[in-house]
């Protein structure tokens, strides 16, 4: 035998082994298979990890209570690490190998946009958990999403600024996907509120010091407020630098920092910072008549009990996505993907952690600005801002 020929044999064996290992065992056909590709690891893991935990928590719970339509739910979750190319491969795998009937998530916008065409082609409904407005605008027949768009966050902030009579602002945005997308959306709608951007700065996702950029903003004549679109640790450092430089005008963060870890990381510097966020963060402070109160309080309790970690709005997006899908399956009375899609689109009056969802053929998000609450950080905790007129 020649040397290369042995190589061939070895390679063939190796490939055969791989093919075998790749073959996924098909579970009982009666189960309703729900798929997901989330960024459980990687730079967006602080979004993906709570989503992952939430899906597991509630699917187990539903199964323990007897499942849906008398069938058990089966959850297939892959970790794309935020890499769109991997996400697309997992999307193909969910469709072709796992034969899921519906998909919840997509953690990042990039992963969502990479996966969307696969589910469109396969006619599998796909409820994304990512932020950008591009996901649902223009509307794709099989693609939905649960989180508020970044444009809505901008509008909510600008509404609040206008109400306080602040019209000259500085912006400091992260150059990560979230910060950049929101920055763009904010610039698109800022004119509608009669607000002008005096200084427009940015920082890298892993930057450790933003005082130079903030110094430039501080020196802009007539500055009345600063808006910081960004997520991750960046906003916490911006907030600390803000305090260090002694800037006194109001600071607005985005819904991207809507988790307790922001307050912990930014420390006392976070006092009086405002941000738009879902009711979930102030679950216990909601008035008793608020229709969202029972839902958000129950989710918060369940999540914190199961994980021992404070609840974040990101896990809430997964909760909303899962239950929109389950209610659609119940209404459809079948696990047929097309029927599920039709019923998701007919979702009305669904009370989730993010707000009250009313979808339609032209609106695959179904939330309006009222879903956002303007929060202010006081004494190291979130408080609701009552209208300032």
């Amino acid at each position, binding site marked *: 035998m020649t040397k290369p020929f042995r190589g061939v044999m070895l*390679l063939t064996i190796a490939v055969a082994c791989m093919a075998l290992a790749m073959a996924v065992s098909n579970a009982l056909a009666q189960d309703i298979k729900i798929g997901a590709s989330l960024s*459980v690891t990687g730079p967006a893991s602080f979004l993906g990890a709570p989503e992952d935990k939430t899906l597991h928590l509630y699917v187990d719970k539903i199964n323990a209570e007897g499942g849906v339509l008398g069938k058990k739910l089966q959850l297939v979750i892959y970790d794309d690490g935020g890499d769109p190319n991997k996400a697309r491969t997992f999307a193909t795998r969910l469709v072709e190998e796992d034969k899921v009937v519906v998909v919840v998530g997509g953690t990042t916008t990039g992963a969502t946009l990479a996966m969307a065409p696969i589910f469109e082609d396969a006619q599998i409904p796909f409820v994304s958990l990512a932020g950008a407005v591009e996901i649902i605008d223009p509307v794709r027949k099989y693609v939905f999403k649960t989180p508020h768009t970044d444009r809505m966050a901008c509008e909510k902030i600008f509404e609040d600024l206008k109400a306080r009579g602040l019209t000259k602002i500085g912006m400091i945005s992260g150059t990560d996907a979230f910060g950049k997308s929101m920055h763009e959306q904010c610039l698109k709608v800022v004119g509608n509120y009669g607000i002008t951007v005096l200084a427009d700065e940015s920082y890298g996702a892993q930057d450790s010091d933003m005082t130079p950029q903030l110094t430039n903003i501080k020196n802009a004549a007539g500055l009345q407020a600063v808006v910081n679109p960004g997520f991750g640790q960046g906003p916490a450092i911006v907030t600390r630098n803000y305090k260090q430089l002694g800037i006194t005008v109001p600071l607005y963060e985005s819904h991207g920092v809507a988790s307790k870890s922001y307050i912990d990381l930014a420390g006392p510097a976070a006092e009086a910072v405002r941000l738009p966020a879902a009711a979930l963060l102030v679950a216990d402070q909601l008035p008793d008549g608020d229709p969202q109160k029972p839902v958000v309080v129950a989710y918060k309790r369940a999540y914190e009990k199961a994980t021992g970690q404070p609840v974040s709005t990101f896990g809430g997006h997964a909760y909303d996505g899962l239950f929109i899908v389950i209610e659609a399956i119940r209404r459809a009375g079948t696990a047929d993907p097309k029927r599920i899609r039709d019923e998701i689109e007919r979702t009305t009056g669904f009370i989730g952690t993010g707000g009250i969802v009313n979808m339609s053929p032209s609106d695959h998000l179904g939330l309006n600005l009222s879903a956002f609450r303007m929060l202010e950080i006081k004494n190291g905790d979130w408080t609701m801002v009552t209208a300032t007129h």
Partner: protein
Amino acid sequence: MRGIFSKRRMTLLVLVALVAVLPLVFPSGYYYRVAALVWISALAAVGLNILMGYAGQVSLGHAGFFGVGAYAVAIGPARLGLASWICILLGAAASGGIAWLVGRPILRLKGHYLAIGTLGFGVLIALVLTSEAKWTGGPDGTSVARLAVANMRISGPTAWYWISGFVLVFGAWLALNLEDSPAGRALRALHDSEIAAALGGIDVARHKLWAFVLAAVYASIAGSELALFDGFITPDTAGFLHSIELVAMVVLGGMGSVLGSVVGAALLTTLPQLLTVFVEYEQALLGLIIMLAMIFLRLGIVPGVQRMLARSAS
């Protein structure tokens, strides 16, 4: 090694056989997709192998060229109205040109300064792709128009399996020919000892430069393929981690071995699919595998296995 069963022909035969036979055992389109991804990565790895295996230099920013190729087919058709296949060529030309410009001054230095220079250059490309959102769509990425030939849109894993498989065989054929050409022999002489090669009258810097340019063109074409296949691309494709992944493919498979580059690409592409159960440990495992392979299997998998077999046979 002459004659019909030369190493070159055997390698090609193996590749052609693999590409032709694998679909017989594929149960679904998902397998076509993973295999197509393997062929695409393998093309970039085979190119990088020309630089690493033949010329003994390493590029730590090779994904930058991959990104140039990918964004060429994303931006060209959408913004300039050019045909996709022209953009593949333009991307390849741009990558080769950039490699020539960057490599020329650096490769005159002895030692491994190319690794450092390409590292910086790769990060810069990724940064430009992230920052110039008007053109590139920014960090969220941008969608890519489908490849169309004679008004027929080419998409789907099966079509791309055959395209990428064919391109890989062609690329491997070129690389193997190069290996046996006078230029290839000069490059290998250079890998063994630069001083000896220089004394033998070989223009060391020029040969290294051409190896670098060629490697960049391979990566660029692979990038174009991936972008057209996925229909969507983000700047991460050009990032440092992807560069490392490409280098790891070449060294795992075996520097200097074309088949090795394909095996390396296959391993690193399928690993995340196999390890979905051990997601938590994926990164640690990957690092461990790279370290262990470099320490104990310094030749790489294919040459290492070949040597082991040769020893047991004799």
